[in-house]
């Protein structure tokens, strides 16, 4: 089971990996893969000992998530999976945006719909960061509130579509990098679900803060 800091880091890594790759993120990706495999106890994939070149990552990302042969194989937007009609900007997209607004956050930094995967992961990262701060300040009420927010957001807007999303990647890609990331995300999704299930059963204080 991951502790708070580890979860925060995992969210951050995933958020970065599901953004369109650029030079810095490509440079960091070797470390990201290594970190993820350590955090999630997932075998470090031998084929990724050499992380792909930026160009390869770009092509694979564009193919999978932007536009490509056979339609976008795995659109990284929640509403495509959660709402009727396989469309962008469904009801859940608006709800997701409301969640951000409730935390005084806006989408100034993104041209993507609110339920873009990387943004959702970033939001969870933010909540965990806040929780860490609350913990440091000894504000248990705030900490509990933040845990609850994570659970609500994760369960309502993320965890249920991730399996389908990851399966679509697996079905339509031969790119080892994103295949592995998808597998890792699936695993992390299950870990988080299990964790939240535990939290629900026990008290909030059970949420591991340290290893």
């Amino acid at each position, binding site marked *: 089971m991951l502790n708070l800091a580890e979860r925060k880091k995992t969210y951050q890594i995933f*958020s970065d990996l599901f*953004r*369109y790759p*650029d*030079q*810095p993120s490509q440079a960091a990706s070797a470390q990201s893969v290594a970190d993820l495999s350590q955090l999630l106890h997932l075998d470090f994939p031998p084929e990724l000992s050499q992380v792909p070149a*930026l*160009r390869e990552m*770009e*092509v694979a*990302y*564009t*193919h999978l998530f*932007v*536009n*490509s*042969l*056979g*339609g*976008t194989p795995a*659109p990284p*937007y929640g509403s*495509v999976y959660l709402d009727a*009609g*396989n*469309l*962008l*900007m*469904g009801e859940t*997209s*608006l709800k997701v*945006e*409301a969640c*951000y*607004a409730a935390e*005084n*956050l*806006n*989408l*100034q*930094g*993104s*041209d*993507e*719909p*609110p339920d*873009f995967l*990387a*943004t959702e992961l*970033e*939001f969870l*990262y*933010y909540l965990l*960061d806040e929780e860490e701060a609350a913990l440091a300040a000894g504000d248990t009420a705030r900490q509990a509130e933040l845990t609850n927010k994570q659970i609500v957001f994760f369960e309502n807007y993320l965890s249920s579509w991730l399996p389908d999303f990851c399966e679509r990647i697996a079905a339509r890609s031969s790119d080892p990098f994103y295949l592995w990331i998808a597998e890792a995300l699936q695993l992390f999704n299950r870990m988080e679900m299990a964790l939240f299930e535990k939290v629900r059963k026990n008290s909030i204080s059970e949420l591991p803060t340290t290893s």
Partner: protein
Amino acid sequence: MANPKKQKMSRRKFLGISSCALTTAVVGSQVKVLKALAKSGDISEPVAAITKDVYTSCGMCVNKCGVIARVRDGVIHKLDPNPNFFPKSRGMLCARGNAGTKVVYDPDRLKYPLIRVGERGEGKWRRASWEEALDMVTNNMNQIAEKYNRASMMFASTEGTFSEHFFLQLAECYGTPNTLRHPTLCLSSNIQGFSATFGTNPTPDVKNADYIIMSGANRAEALMTPDSIDMIKTDGGGRRKLVYLDPRFTKTAAKADEWYPIKPGTDMAFILALINVIITEGLYDDDFIEENTVGFEQLAQHIKQYSPGWAATECDIPAKDIRRIAHEFANAAPSAVYYQGRRSSFFQNDTQMRRAMAILNAIVGAWDTKGGLLPNKKIALTKHDYLAPWYDDVPDRLDKGGVTYLSEKDGSWPVFRDRALAADPYPIKGMMVYKQNVLVSVPDRAKSLELMKQMDFICTIDITMSDTAWYSDVVLPEATYLERLDPPENLSGPVPVVAFRQPCVEAMFESKTNFWIMQQLAKRLGPEIAETFDFTMEEHIHHMLKKKPEIYDALFGKGVYYEDTEPEYGRLKGKRLRTRSGKIELYSEKYAKKGLDPLPVYKSPDKVPTNMYRLLVGRHAYFTHGTTANNALLHDLMPENTLWLAPSEARKLRLKNGQMVKVKSKVGEEKLKLEITEKIRPDSVYMAHGFGVLSKGLSNIAGVGGSDAALIESKYCPISGNCAMHETFVQITPA
């Protein structure tokens, strides 16, 4: 060429750079590195909370119907017909119009500029910043100008977006004469034939006509407002009659009073026989002819050879029916029209066939009168004038002289493509495409692919990954019609209106309006060109409306501006027409001078070879050409196209309903499902247009159905340059 550091600092990128300084500036005192999300002290209502009704114009086809977008929480929830008086679409919205929301929220829509990485057509793309993509486009344009000639760039454009004139303006300013528009895949022969007779291409007054003859124009399926609405019998209109000629039993046939499965390519024989009866039996409008036309004597002489008996053997319509229809038509006149409407052309003699139509309408006086042909009116808007740079060494259009009457702006697709493939007289090396799906809409796809292959550079501006986009080097995402402010457009007609578009929602992702893209390209092409685009859209609109500022309020207040509610009849009475003689030319002096037949001369279509069938194509009410078949709502209505074949022929070929068949023409081969139906002549087969696309980029239609463009040979009308869609014979075998 991809240097990420050169990328434009978009808002996202700006925050994406994990520079603490930048990030902290945005997130305030927070140390955390947030990229998409930002913290600001002032969180106003999210943009998403807006609920409003927005007037705009539909962009699903070229018809421009009035639409009101119901925006709920910042999302377009529903498109409804404009409830205000809108003479052109009369408060309706078809299936495609209703499916428009899917276009905006389609996860397959183009989102970012894309640059090809692998081989052309291989499907390897990367995202690029606008900066990089635009630079790449103009660099290539400049290179082609340097290496070859400015005329070596071709610009192919769609119609009906309200913005294509900016695209054409860029072509002109860049210095190429080679712009290609849709008319030679559509109605250029129609315009040519009617203009040669009336000096203009008039509109039939379908709403008030007592007697309508339609040939080929399938108005119940190939929707054109308001004709599709008006052709339906209304209460109490007991005298109205619709005679419909089509080798297929279409939905229009189901609505018609009489349907004749005419032999394809013989419409002209039918029309000439009608003229023959009307003239020989003295059913024509003597006074009208005397006052308004020239060449009746020549016509009367010429028409003698075309008796109903003769026509009956040509077109498979009994002589007595031809005679009866001629009488009924003449009796109903002048409230009677032989409907030319708008449809693509099918045979190489299409211009002369249209002339015959025009002549028939003229001799019964169905001109500029209630229920006849009406000259179009326009509401004058101030034009945007610009001074295009002058280039000394730019040659004429590539297809110049290829056909008798070539439109300078539109060109002729088949002629142009043949010359481009032969580099005759100069090579074409660059291609800018604006929303025209060349590989689906231009006949003989193999040739189009060949053409694209020889290009040094191809850039496509579109909203989805069309086949043509797939074969391009740079793909630029345009904002959809519901996300744009488009200039007012003058929809001419008997009751002209001005329509416009305004953004119902903000453009998603990094899609941009065509106008913005043109501006950006112009900026990169140099100050002289940039100057012609140096205005904002708002300024442009105000400029266009400066003589009638009330239009502005009407557009924003009720989505439409009009001055009349009913057509004005007899408007051109006593006025000079825009023909050589100033009158209706039954005999065309102009054609005679050019060595063309001054009166329509009939020539039988080629016989269908044994064991072959004539391939017919057509449209239906669910898809617009090759552009909307991927729309999920519409896709459910018609997931694939089929090949229609008469039961008697299917028995002969031992084919079963629903089995896959191979359709083979001289230029291509397609596989699709067979549909055995009584609805078609035994000598022909039919397939709907818009299926069987090449790229799998459109997820819903990949590999389903067959493409007509792959099969149709590129024959064309030598007068107008229009494609002849029905002059291809195919063989059918089990697949």
